[in-house]
Every structure is written in structure tokens, then in C-alpha cells.
């Protein structure tokens, strides 16, 4: 089973915090891979919050192709982090040429574009690069979005972290999400590695979504740019979140109602029951089924955790004002924030959505039985 860890902190932290938490939770994952998501970046990226950052893995030939492609589009490199790969290859990890984290300057003609158009174009470019990479096997692109860095690799999280020197100052961030373990259901593929990301929304999941195929078919049929890929059954969680908030205009508290709707008896008693019943019916195809703990991040830097209908996966949230962590296990939390008030740790149950907002002051818990801020 995978292990998840996420932290949001007022002061920028090193991703090594997450790697250490992952390391103490080692019994829960087999060390077959790691995915890292960084946002609200510090260091050099602090000054360029609007610049889109490309993260991925490239061969030497791939990087040349990338440069040509980006130059043709009018993107100029603004800043880059070079992760120099040590000469001695990490056992079990494929040989890579370059791990790329590069911030770009938008093309001039983009300046007049509305935000939505810019957002869509960024997704298009990421998809185009991914397709180019899949064609020639020379690029793997994880994200192309302002203020976001993603790194994924096969291997033991701690070894990969040391190998690639995650401890460097430039990688410090205020929001960090990490997942330990590669996808085990289908072929080993870095695109199947959590966290998943689309237009500011990121989630990572622990478990298996048995309703994956119908949900994938439904999402694909929405004709939304970026609803594609699906190398993992968990990628749909990110897209459902994006769909709920971005397309349906609903709040985060509704996300849980969409993926795990209440049963009818509960809906009848619910103050917003009439609306929720409509939602349950019209979004029936998005209901997930299976044991899942989902940790996610919104564009406003909120972090949240939700559980499946039966609460079959572990998950705990704890911390102190200014710094909160979401972890699969309490030992992970202990490693990251040992000086918190442990009596306040919260383990969300099957009805709860636990949210730490952008102010990082407290844990907000909303239960599915609470009234919803309705659109009417």
C-alpha cells in the first residue's frame, strides 16, 4: 500500500522533511518509487510566482527538442535548476540524463490573453510535450504551471532524494506533497506515479479505485482539455476535483459528496438533501468505489484529506498554527512535526473532509452531514 505525506507551512521547508516522514513509514510501502509536488515555492522562485515552471525528465536529445519547441512558441528561460545526476547510477533507477526544472518567461503575445486562455494553453503545451516525449521516448513531462514543481522517480524515496539532492535550498517550498510507491496495478510508468496535477489542482491517493474504468470513460467524454492519460486509476481523483470546482463551480466541501455520496436515508435528513440528491444522480458516474485516502491541494494552496465511504485507509492530520501535516501514519506526522499537540491530531472518518486553508491557522473539518453553502 502506498504512503502519503503532505505538509503546509508558513516558513518554507525542505522536501527532505517529507522524505524523512516517508522513510519512517517505510513499512507501509515497498520503496518502489516516489512522487514529489512542491508549490508556494521559496528561494529563487519566490520572485517569479507567475512564471510557468516546467518539470520533467529529459534525455540530452530531448532537451534540445524541448528548447527548439519552446523557443518557437516564444518562451524564454528565466531560471533553471540543474539537477546533476551523479555518475554512479542508483540501483533500480533507470539512467537519466537531465531532471529539468525551468521557469519561463511568457511569450509577449500572451500578455493580452485572458487568464483562462493562458491556463488552457499551458495545459496544451504540457500535453504536446508529453506526446512528443512518448513518441521519441526522450521527455517525461510532469507539470507546466506557475509556482509548481513536480519530480517523480522509480526507487526508494530516501535514496532517490539523496541521489538527486532534494535537500538543496532552491527546492524549499511551503506546500509539499509526497507519495511513496510506484503504481503496481499496471505497467511501471512514471506518469502513473502520484501526485497528479491539472491546472492548479493536485491529488495523491492511497488505495484502489475499482470504479476507474467507467469514471475514465465519463471524464474522457467530457471533452475537457487535459482529461487524458489515466495511467493510474487514481488520476481520476484529480480530474474529478478539477471538474467539481472548475467546471461545476462548487466548493471543496462538495467534492466528497461527489466521490462518495451519502446514502438515501442520510440524504433525506440532510438540510441540503434536495440539492445533494440531484448531485448524486447527475454525477453518479463520478462516484468512486474502493478504499481510498485522498490528499489534495487547491490553487489557493489549501490542503485537504478525504476518505472513502468505508474508511478503509489510514490517514491523520495534525500540527500547529503555521504548520500542518497530512500523513498516512502518525509516525510520519511525528517525524515531521514532533512538537505539536498530539491530542489535537485528527483522523478523518468516512464523512469528513479535513481542510487546512491558505492561512495555515487551523484544521477545518466539514462533515457530509453539515449543510452546504448552496449555489442558490
Amino acid at each position, binding site marked *: 500500500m502506498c504512503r502519503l505525506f503532505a505538509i503546509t507551512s508558513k516558513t518554507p521547508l525542505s522536501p527532505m522533511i517529507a522524505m524523512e516522514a516517508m522513510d519512517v513509514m517505510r513499512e507501509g510501502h515497498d520503496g518502489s518509487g516516489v512522487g514529489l509536488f512542491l508549490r508556494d515555492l521559496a528561494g529563487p522562485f519566490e520572485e517569479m510566482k507567475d512564471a510557468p515552471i516546467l518539470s520533467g525528465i529529459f534525455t540530452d536529445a530531448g532537451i534540445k527538442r524541448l528548447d527548439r519547441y519552446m523557443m518557437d512558441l516564444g518562451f524564454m528561460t528565466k531560471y533553471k535548476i540543474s539537477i546533476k545526476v551523479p555518475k554512479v547510477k542508483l540501483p533500480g533507477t533507470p539512467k537519466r540524463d537531465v531532471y529539468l526544472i525551468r521557469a519561463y518567461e511568457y511569450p509577449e503575445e500572451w500578455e493580452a490573453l485572458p487568464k483562462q486562455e493562458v491556463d488552457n494553453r499551458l495545459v496544451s503545451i504540457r500535453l504536446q510535450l508529453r506526446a512528443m516525449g512518448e513518441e521519441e521516448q526522450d521527455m517525461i513531462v510532469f507539470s507546466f504551471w506557475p509556482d509548481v514543481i513536480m519530480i517523480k522517480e522509480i526507487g526508494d524515496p530516501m535514496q532517490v532524494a539523496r541521489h538527486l539532492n532534494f535537500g538543496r535550498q532552491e527546492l524549499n517550498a511551503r506546500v509539499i506533497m509526497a507519495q511513496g510507491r510506484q503504481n503496481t496495478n499496471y505497467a511501471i510508468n512514471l506518469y502513473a506515479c502520484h501526485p497528479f496535477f491539472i491546472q492548479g489542482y493536485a491529488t495523491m491517493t492511497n488505495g*484502489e479505485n*475499482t470504479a476507474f474504468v467507467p469514471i475514465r470513460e465519463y471524464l474522457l467524454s467530457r471533452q475537457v482539455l487535459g482529461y487524458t492519460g489515466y495511467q493510474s486509476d487514481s488520476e481520476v481523483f484529480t480530474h474529478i476535483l478539477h471538474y467539481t470546482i472548475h467546471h461545476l463551480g462548487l466548493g471543496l466541501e462538495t467534492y466528497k459528496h461527489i466521490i462518495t455520496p451519502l446514502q*438515501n436515508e442520510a440524504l433525506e435528513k440532510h438540510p441540503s438533501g434536495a440539492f445533494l440528491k440531484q448531485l448524486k444522480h447527475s454525477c453518479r458516474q463520478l462516484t468512486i468505489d474502493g478504499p481510498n485516502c485522498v490528499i489534495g491541494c487547491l490553487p489557493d494552496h489549501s490542503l485537504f484529506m478525504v476518505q472513502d465511504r468505508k474508511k478503509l485507509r489510514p490517514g491523520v492530520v495534525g500540527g500547529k498554527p503555521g504548520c500542518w501535516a497530512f500523513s498516512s501514519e502518525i509516525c510520519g506526522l511525528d517525524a515531521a512535526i514532533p512538537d505539536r499537540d498530539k491530542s489535537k491530531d485528527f483522523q478523518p472518518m468516512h464523512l469528513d473532509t479535513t481542510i487546512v486553508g491558505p492561512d495555515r491557522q487551523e484544521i477545518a473539518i466539514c462533515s457530509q452531514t453539515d449543510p452546504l453553502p448552496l*449555489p442558490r
Partner: protein
Amino acid sequence: MLPDRPITPSTLSVKDLLWQVLWDKDKCTLCGRCTAVCPVNAIELGVFRKREFTASLEPERPSTNVYKVYHGIRQKTDPAYACVGCAMCNQVCPNDAIIPIRSDEADKLRFHINRGGQPRSRGGRRNVPGGLLDQIKFIRISMLTDPALDAGRHEFELRTLLGRMLPPEDNIRFYKENGWIPPVREIYPLIIGSMSFGALSPNMWEGLQLGVAYLNEELGMPVRMCTGEGGCPPRLLRSRFLKYTILQIASGYFGWDEIIHALPDMQEDPCAVEIKYGQGAKPGDGGLLMWHKVNKLIAAIRGVPVGVSLPSPPTHQTKYSIEEAVAKMIQSMYMTWGFRVPVYPKISGTSTAMAVLNNLTRNPYAAGLAIDGEDGGTGAAYNVSMNHMGHPIATNIRDAYFNLAKLGKQNEIPLFAGGGVGKNGNLAANAAALIMLGASGVQIGKYIMQAAAGCLGSESDRCNICNIGRCPKGITSQDPRLYRRLDVDMVAERVVDAFLAFDMELKKIVAPLGRSTTLPIGMSDALGIGDHHAAERLGIKYVV
């Protein structure tokens, strides 16, 4: 045979018949029950002549013989009275002295049951054993990352939706703006399909209704039953049980006067209205209730004279196209109940089903589509229609699902599959396979007749006389001498048994797949089949 006995082309021997009645003289008590019970008069009391020879051992006394007479059972060889193999004779025989046996070769009867130029018609279904649904396996068993669920202890929400679903964006907008949101029913995914009050005997129909009411009110299973064409008893129309009933309107419009008259007195809305355009067993053919079954009660409910055959035309005579039918009929049915009742069409499985479906996707009122495949049962149809026409349900429903997925509307128009579901007894497995291929629910007819009332029909042309009202069990007869054989309460009890057993089996299928909170509609990754072409055609895994 006497040498001067006439031999015509239709002179058959017992050997030429499909079923041969074996009778044991030594066991028979000549009670006559078998001949009394035989629904087709295939056997009669016979007088047999026998020569008894006594050989003398003394030369002076000659040997003698006497001619004696004894009584027994004789099987008629007239094609009109051919045994149908129902074995009611065996059921009533106190000594097991009689039993029909199926011929060991293809019968010659089939060439002769078209007397007067009338091709054979019968009830039942295709009489082809086997079928694709039984070959499908559920291959995706959750083991490690996703532990299997416990069918006995976990909560399950295996409900389906009947009604037009709006896309989420529209639904939220309409809700905000107080717009009209089409009615949606949450129902159990196994529906008792359309078998009319005229086709079934009053005892059978009442038993089914009673069972359905019990399932709903005592066990909390929202099971629904479709009336079939021919209306509904007035008392039911005015009762609270109407909400468990799907009213069918077919091209003969039989019984709709009664329904319309009952409208002002209705306490509840019906669950839905089904407009029948076709039936799987005889696609492109209308309905037919033969005169044998039109007694006083049926005539009164249907608003027709007693003792006349009631054919429904193959099409709705007032409509010339599905577009028009959808536009007019669906809408006027909605209007009848104040836009509170879902209305959907039922068609036969055919390669033209996609055209109908595409049309429905553009109609905001269409509440679903029921497709009845070639193995569907029917009350009365020509043999040739039943055996040689129609489309198997699995591919039809799969095509329909893919079609909806392509349009992004797979959640919006629920598909209901019927036609041979559970015909070999594997009801839950067949139903689950169809659901995972894309059906929102399944309809059963003959299965419930077999399970709840002991219908004798089989997939090898046994019985199949539902059409002429001589059902030996009294299931499809309007003759009180026959239908009093059926105990209403026992039928109800068996309906409940069958549904509860189905429910448990369905859970035993979905729980190991890790599904419990939604019906696994379209979960095709769980399906496998050992036939490469079928796997490719259905878009499921090929496993050997």
C-alpha cells in the same frame, strides 16, 4: 397398421414426434388423471386388443388362443395433439407410470405443424440452449491493494436510476433557476419485465404484485414490475401499490381507457411509463393476445368484446417515425402525470437500435431505453420469428453504451437490457455481466415465471403453449380450471425468495470486485471471455 389404412403425408408415428409418452401397463392404476390433466390432449384412454395363446402339452388337446381386451393410455399421433413434453401426466400419476421422453433424433413433427397453411406459433423463447452471457467471467478480483469486501457484512447500495439525468452543469443550473428537472426513480436493478394481465393468469399476476409489494414495503428493496400491454386492474390503479408498477402502453393501446379514467383517483404516480415499440422474441411484430385468453375479466379491463383475438399492430399507427413518436407520445405521457413520471421506450434488440438511441439523446424527455434481445420471451409468436429474428442483447447493449459514451451521455439515458437473462438459471451472473457491459438494469420475464410459478418451459421446446391459454401450471391461462392450480401466496413467496437470492448472488459478484457503493455500470475491466472474437467485439478481456 392395417394394410388398407390410409397413409397421408401427415400420418406420423409416435417415433416421429418430438415427445414420446412412455406408459407402463404394470404400474398404471387406470385412474385417468394423466389424460385429465394433459393440456393438449396428447394422450387418451385406449382400448387395446391382445391375443393370449395357450399351448397344450397333451397331443389330444389342441392349443387355444383367446382375444382379450385391456385398457390403457394411447398417445395421439395427430400433429394437432402432439405431446408438448410438459410432464404434467407424470406429476399427477400416483405410480410414476407415465412420462414423456424426448425423441432421440430430430422429430418429423416440425414438418407438419402448419396445418391449414398456418405456420406454427407458440409461446416461450428461442429454444436455443447456451448463450454468450454464460461464457462471461468476472476476472478482476481485488486481492492486495484493494481488499475484497464482505458480501454478508458490508453495506451495499445496489440501486439504479430510471429517468433522464441532466448533465451536472445543467442540473445545477436548473436547480438554481427552479427549472424543470426530469423525474428520476431509484429502483432495484432487476425489473420484472412486461407480462400483461391478459397474458398471465390472475393468480400469477396477483402473486407477482404481492411479492413486489412485500419486497418494497417489508424488505426495503425498490423492485418494480411492468404491466405489459393490456392495462391494469382498476383497484391497483387506485391503490398505493401503483408506485411499484411501470405502466406499459403498446401499439394496441389496450387498457388505456381504464388507466385514463382512473387518473383523477390515483393516490400515487406509477413508477414509470414504458412505450412498447418492439419485443425481442418477435422484433418488428405486434403483440397478440389470442382469443383463448380473452375472458370476461380481461375483456372488461381491455375494453374489448369477449373471445376475440387482440392483435396489436407492429407499429403505433398514429406515428410514422420514432422521431415523431418520441416527440408526441413521450411528451403527452409526461403531460398526463404533470411531468412527474419518467417515460421511456422499449424496443427490440436490432442493429437499428442505435438510430433510436441517437434520437433519444436529443430528446430531453426520454427517460431511458429498454432493449429486449432475441432471447426474450413472448406470449404468442410465430416459430420463425422467435427462432430466427432479432439481435443478441450483449452486443446490442454494449454498442448502445459505447454510443452514449461517445456522446458523453452515458449517465444520462439509462439502458435496460432484457432477453434471455438467466435463461440457464444463472440470473445474477448474467445480470451482472450486462450491467458491467453498460446496462443500468435488467428485465426478466420467463425467469420469474420459472422461479416463482414453476413454468415448465425449457430451452429445448418443452411446453411452449403459453399462447393458447392452456398453461399446465395455470401461469398463462385465463381458464379458472387451470389457474386455480396456482397459489397466489406461494407465488409471492417465491418472488421474494428469488429476489433475495439474486441480491445475495449479486453481492457475491460485486464484493470480490471491490464494488459496493454504486452499481458497477460499465465496469468492463472486470469482464473476460474465452472467445477471442467475442472479447474483441465487446471490448473486454480475452482469457483462456
